[in-house]
């Protein structure tokens, strides 16, 4: 056996070759099925120009449900917000947590029609990788991941899939991982993303991609490799200050000796007893007696899954994801307590988190990462048909350096604003916002060479400005209507005035404009609004 011979030429997210035939197929299927379109935008509730505020008065902050949708989804329509408001937070949360109850079949069927590797087992992907040099499972899993995040209705589940994929990060472009990551996603991450942490940890420890990525496959009694042992404790469970020592790293590595992969095993994972160190070990003060086999490593995983440092570490990471970069300790402690009391039940942890006062008070405290920014552009608007939204998502997330599974280090993509916010990154977002809002601008510098040179933003993500405009004609009415439809809440007077001034172009802000000017003003307001902090944060 040698799965490593599957290694193709070195790739990065930038050299990953998009399969143009697959792009066209999935785009056509999405459009034909009607699934390429998201639910309609809010109806124009204004009776007449000048009275464009929605029926319910809008606050300057998102209400709790809008805040929850900002955090727990990749963007949302007015329809979804109405549903959430009808149900209330606790009930809408339960609706989202019941991830298996959603009808996701239409999108899944489309994906499986186009991306063969999603249905394959290890033997099949290995065979195809050896016999078909067009076979590109790395692109397939990236594409499927982005399409699910963009279109599936169980958004919190998709966010948690991303969370755990990033927590147990492997570099998609590291050798044979590109062939196996799709199976790992399907078999090891997705079944447990809203399940139990212990199950996730065990599945990951035996996953071929992790065994390859952190060199566990070559960890033997004669030549121990500490790579996995170290990251298991530092990144997957206890955290770097979680109370383990360098000796613990060495001992844990000994426990996992013999855990390897072979083509002869269906799931590739194989415990090869002759390579296992059968001596006694001491891990975190606990003795693991001599003479053990595969259970040595399994015992370590159980020990780590139940450790209070793991509860605290996972709780903090969840709170950083959903509350703020530096979350209040009270929230972290509450989630950690739930983690401990429920043996790492992820749904229960999320219930504690989202129903906490600290969550409710955290509106706007997170800076969108590139995937969130790009997907929220798509999900905020109702794309008109014939759009190429998938290409938009795929290329823009790549250009903004957050292609799924492409982070090279085992830490995964950062969840801290400081990692993503700099002049060029924000400038790229502004330029993307301008391109989308005006429609006729070159997506330009952000788009790779696969693209025809004359392509403009509206080719990829045409937005229905006329529909959005409704009957609004004055600068003030246009501004309020754009704010309502994009943000679903009002904004401070200073910011509103800046937008009205932009819409008015020197005219009085209450005078109706001719339709062509009103449309131009609406686009200008959208450009500034999508560039603003209100759309950059969540």
């Amino acid at each position: 056996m040698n799965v490593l011979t599957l290694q193709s030429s070195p790739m990065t997210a930038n050299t990953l070759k998009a399969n143009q035939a697959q792009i066209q197929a999935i785009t056509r299927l999405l459009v034909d099925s009607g699934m390429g379109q998201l639910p309609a935008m809010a109806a124009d509730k204004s009776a007449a120009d000048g009275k464009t505020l929605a029926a319910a008065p809008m606050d300057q902050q998102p209400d709790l449900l809008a805040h929850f949708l900002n955090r727990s989804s990749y963007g949302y329509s007015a329809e979804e917000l109405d549903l959430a408001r009808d149900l209330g937070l606790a009930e809408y949360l339960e609706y989202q947590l019941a991830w298996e109850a959603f009808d996701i079949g239409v999108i899944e069927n489309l994906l499986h029609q186009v991306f063969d590797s999603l249905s394959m087992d290890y033997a099949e992907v290995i065979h195809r990788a050896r016999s078909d040099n067009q076979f590109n499972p790395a692109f397939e899993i990236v594409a499927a991941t982005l399409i699910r995040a963009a279109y599936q209705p169980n958004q919190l589940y998709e966010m948690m899939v991303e969370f755990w994929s990033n927590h147990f990060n492997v570099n998609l472009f590291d050798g044979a991982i590109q062939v196996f990551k799709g199976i790992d996603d399907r078999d090891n991450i997705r079944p447990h993303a809203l399940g139990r942490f212990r199950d996730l940890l065990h599945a990951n420890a035996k996953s071929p991609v992790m065994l390859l990525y952190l060199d566990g496959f070559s960890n033997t009694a004669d030549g121990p490799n500490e790579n996995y042992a170290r990251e298991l404790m530092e990144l997957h469970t206890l955290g770097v200050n979680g109370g383990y020592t360098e000796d613990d790293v060495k001992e844990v590595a000994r426990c996992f000796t013999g855990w390897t992969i072979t083509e002869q095993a269906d799931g590739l994972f194989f415990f090869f007893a002759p390579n296992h160190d059968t001596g006694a070990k001491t891990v975190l003060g606990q003795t693991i007696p001599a003479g053990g086999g595969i259970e040595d490593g399994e015992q370590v995983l159980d020990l780590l899954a139940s450790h209070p440092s793991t509860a605290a570490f996972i709780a903090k990471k969840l709170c950083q994801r959903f509350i703020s970069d530096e979350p209040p300790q009270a929230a972290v402690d509450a989630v950690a307590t739930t983690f401990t009391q429920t043996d790492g039940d992820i749904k229960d942890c999320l219930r504690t988190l989202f129903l906490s006062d600290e969550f409710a008070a955290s509106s706007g405290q997170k800076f969108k990462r590139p995937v969130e920014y790009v997907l929220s552009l798509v999900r905020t608007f109702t794309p008109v048909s014939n759009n190429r939204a998938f290409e938009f998502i795929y290329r823009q997330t790549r250009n903004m350096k957050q292609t799924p599974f492409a982070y090279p280090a085992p830490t995964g993509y950062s969840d801290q604003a400081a990692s993503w916010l700099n002049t060029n990154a924000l400038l790229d977002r502004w330029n993307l916002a301008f391109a989308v809002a005006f429609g006729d601008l070159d997506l330009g510098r952000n788009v790779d060479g696969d693209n025809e040179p004359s392509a403009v933003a509206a080719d990829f993500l045409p937005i229905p400005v006329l529909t959005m405009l409704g009957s609004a004609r004055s600068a003030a009415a246009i501004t309020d209507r754009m704010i309502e439809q994009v943000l679903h809440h009002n904004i401070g007077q200073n910011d509103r005035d800046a937008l009205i001034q932009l819409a008015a172009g020197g005219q009085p802000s209450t005078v109706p404009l001719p339709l062509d000017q009103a449309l131009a003003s609406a686009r200008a307001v959208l450009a500034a609004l999508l560039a603003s902090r209100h759309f950059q944060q969540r």
Partner: protein
Amino acid sequence: MKRRTFLKASGLAAVPLITPRLVFGQTGQTGSADVLVCVYQRGGADGLNMVVPHGESAYYQNRPNIAVPQPGQTGGAIDLDGFFGLNPNLSPLKSLYDAGDLAVVHATGSPDPSRSHFEAQDFMEYGTPGVNTTTDGWLNRYLATLSGPASTFQGVGFGQVQLALQGAYPVVGMNSIEGYNLNTHPEDEDPLRAAIAGLFNQAAPMDVAASGILASVDELKAADPGSIAVDHGAEYPASPFGTDMQQVAQLIKSGIGLQVACVDVGGWDHHDQLEAAMTPLASDFAATLAAFYQDLGDRMASVTVVTMTEFGRRVKENASLGTDHGHGSVMFALGGGVNGGQVITQWPGLSSGDLNQGDLAITTDYRTVLSDALINRLGAADLQSVFPDFVGPSGAGVFQSI
């Protein structure tokens, strides 16, 4: 009415929005301080195969399959001083070394024992190895010590804002000079800028970045570095590193006020097939540095390039004909103010007793080299805030005083 005239008629466009803070000088620098270009070899570059201790028999004993042969043999090292030699793929650096403008510091690096890429990189870039609580980079703290008129382009990170540059002091991230402008219709630009300025009028990091963008796109447009040609027949490789360094040279020549730049060159994590993997990388690395040197010509008198990597590799080759994570490695220093033409090292040796957990020991802290550059080439007086826990030494004779 077209939107153009509609907006122009409004008078909005006449509002002065941002006053560029341009600093034009002979070379664009304030005072006589050098421009410092920090090149980071991501992944842990194998110093022993970049600058080969061909006079050390333990090197050949530990690397029977992947050692670079002794000078004079086929594919042999290019001798530097009778003991060390350059990897032949680094041959473009030899003439720079001979001209006295390139020095090698060997057995150097970060003293923290971590063999973890990200922890080691973070520690190095924060400038506080082993400290988990640092939140800003050593270059950002250095920039914060400067006084006087400042360009928005004082600190520029290429491809990303590297951790070394991150912090409270505003810096610029740049993917390309060409793409660094506002993408809009000319007639919409001024009104949009006015709106954006109004929307980002607070003091949060996003507002700092926003005002940085509005200022820097203007400064860049005025200085127009993109129009500056490569000089002296230099040829940069068409690689990401080559492209980035070419643009650093353009920024320097434009006089935009660049003082420190960070550039990454990735891919040095050679766990297997070291020779095949390192050959193209080393060629790109050396050809780029040589092109940069040739392009800038006399301007290299006030430019200092320092390279670093998070750690070196295990002395002993592994079963995959690669090398695993190690400790000490190599830094290169390039510029007119370098005491070049020498390998600067307190060589610890490669016999088993000399090693640090099987790895090349570190006898020169990387902060010694960086302090040497900051003090002697950038005129820094007090590095307490830059390297707070560092007790020195703060010089290794790598640089001449300005």
